[in-house]
């Protein structure tokens, strides 16, 4: 399918500072794509370039097959939902939503129909005549979303639209946003630095770091098979085991980690003896028990810290040589562990291996 958005070798510098570094990205229509990365990694800059508010220093941006690199914002068929909503304070909810439609030259009847339809979509029919100042945060959020959707853009851009909401409302809006995206079939390009938000909503996550794309893929892949230490650390909680290769044959590599021999699947890699690797071990992949597990990787440890998190208890387990493993158990299982001395075990196939040369960032 023809991509609706395409960044070709896009660069953006402010003076000497490179904000976006050779961005290549193409987005299929109808997808929920998230740009995820730490503060200052160039997410907003990328989005603003697509919106027309920044001009790339070099490169090309295509929108629905047309080169829009130098087209002003009012002439491109994309709309932004701003972080602070940017609702027009002197206009009613209905007027705000109608703004883009009026500028498109729609007649009053058509505008009225579209506005009612959109207000209904987010159950705000009764609020049409209110001013933005008279709405709650979540309601403003919905109005901003509908205002941007109203002119039927090719892509909807959302720059951290949920960050001003409290945790509970944010979760609710994540689900609602995803539902609206599915219902309307629009392409959403969403920016956030919250990995959980990205995992919840996205079809595709683009992890950015220092102006570059670090890895791109669906949430499952990024979580289960991170391609770099940065991604492994940024998405979810993780244990990174820096290991030395003892031997490697096909799907099985024997590694020395912290004096213990463990096995892992090196994926497509062909590691040589003595080479360093990182093994990504997720806390939930570790099984804690009082008795020694019969198969798989296992290590004896001592519980150093327990943190009750409601639906699970997080354990920090010291496994010798000062190394700590982060693991989690169901609260009701904690008692069965007996004492502080426990066994940790995990299946080799639940881990991912990252070569050392990709580790430094």
């Amino acid at each position, binding site marked *: 399918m023809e991509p609706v958005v395409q960044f070709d070798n896009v660069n953006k510098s402010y003076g000497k500072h490179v904000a976006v570094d050779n961005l290549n990205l193409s987005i299929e229509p109808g997808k929920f794509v998230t740009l995820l990365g730490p503060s200052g990694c160039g997410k907003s800059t990328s989005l603003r370039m697509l*919106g*027309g*508010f920044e001009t790339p220093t070099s490169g090309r941006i295509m929108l629905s097959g047309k080169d829009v690199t130098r087209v*002003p*914002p*009012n002439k491109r068929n*994309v*709309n*932004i939902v*701003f*972080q*602070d909503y*940017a*609702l*027009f*304070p*002197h206009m009613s909810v209905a007027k705000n939503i109608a*703004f*883009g439609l009026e*500028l*498109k030259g729609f007649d009053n009847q058509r505008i009225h129909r579209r506005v009612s339809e959109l207000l209904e979509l987010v159950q705000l029919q009764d609020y049409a005549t209110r001013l933005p*100042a008279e709405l709650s945060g979540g309601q403003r959020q919905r109005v901003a979303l509908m*205002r*941007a959707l109203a*002119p039927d853009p090719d892509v909807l851009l959302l720059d951290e639209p949920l960050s001003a909401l409290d945790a509970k409302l944010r979760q609710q809006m994540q689900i609602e946003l995803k539902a609206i995206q599915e219902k309307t079939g629009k392409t959403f390009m969403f920016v956030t630095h919250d990995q959980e938000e990205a995992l919840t909503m996205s079809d595709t996550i683009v992890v950015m770091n220092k102006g570059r794309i670090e890895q791109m893929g669906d949430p499952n892949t990024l979580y289960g098979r991170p391609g770099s230490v940065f991604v492994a650390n940024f998405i979810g909680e993780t244990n990174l085991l820096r290991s030395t290769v003892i031997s490697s044959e096909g799907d099985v590599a024997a590694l020395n980690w912290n004096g213990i021999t463990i096995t892992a699947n090196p994926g497509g890699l062909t590691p040589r003896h003595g080479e360093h690797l990182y093994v990504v071990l997720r806390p939930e992949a570790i099984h804690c028990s009082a008795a020694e597990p019969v198969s798989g990787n296992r290590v004896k440890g001592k519980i150093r810290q327990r943190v009750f998190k409601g639906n699970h208890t997080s354990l920090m387990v010291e496994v010798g040589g000062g190394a700590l493993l982060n693991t989690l158990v169901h609260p009701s299982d904690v008692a069965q562990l007996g004492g502080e001395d426990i066994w940790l075990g995990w299946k080799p196939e639940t881990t991912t291996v990252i070569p050392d040369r990709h580790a430094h960032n």
Partner: protein
Amino acid sequence: MRNTVSDGPRTTLTAFYWAFILYLLLPLTLMMAMSFKDANFVAFPIGDWTLDWYAKVMQDKQFLEACLYSIMIAAASTLAATTLGTWIAMLIVADGIRGRTIIFALACLPAVVPGMISAISLRIFISTIDMPTGTAAIILGHTVHAVPFVVVMALTRLRSMPRNLVDAARDLGADGVVAFFRVTLPYLGPALLGGMIFCVLLSIDDFVRTFFLGGYRPTLPMLIFAKVQGGMSPEINAMATIVLVVTAAVGLYAEFITRRARTR
């Protein structure tokens, strides 16, 4: 709980405050009181009260004409100053403008230059460009004087405006002009209205500039000045009282508007 230690200074302060208020209000009160006096000269005792002076003022063609003239000048200079001041304020906050400090300083200069100096320089200026004294010259003078106040009020409001607002308008298909008239201007609205009322009051009140730039047609302050020179009479008190009440009401209203805008 009242703190007894600080009560002494506090009482003194309050007393001074009331003394000051009295000092401010006494001349005005006297002036207003005398306008109701049923006699031909301004002095105590007042004796009988009357509204005749007001009736006389309202039938005074000179007074009415001067009022009209003053209002006309105020309206014209306010319109010019508001347009100019808003434009300068927009220029100062615009992206990529160099020397915005200098623009701001220049725009504010007329507010700090002594009225006399400003009047003389304006007079010299108009004769240099061969502009006759009279209505146009007065409007020019009042405009220059009023611009800084508009600039400051518009700037304050513009700086509090989320910059995303204009971006959002552009994003939804507005070009620069449409975004200005449909988003920026309504946002500035309350501040501009306040600024405009202030301009009107400045213009109506202005004597020095008008005196230097005016022709034979008297504005309100010039008329009252001429009348005072002809001798005090309760009629002048009545005129001044009318002007006082109207301008105070308008001023308070302006304050109310800008205050409400600030709390939005």
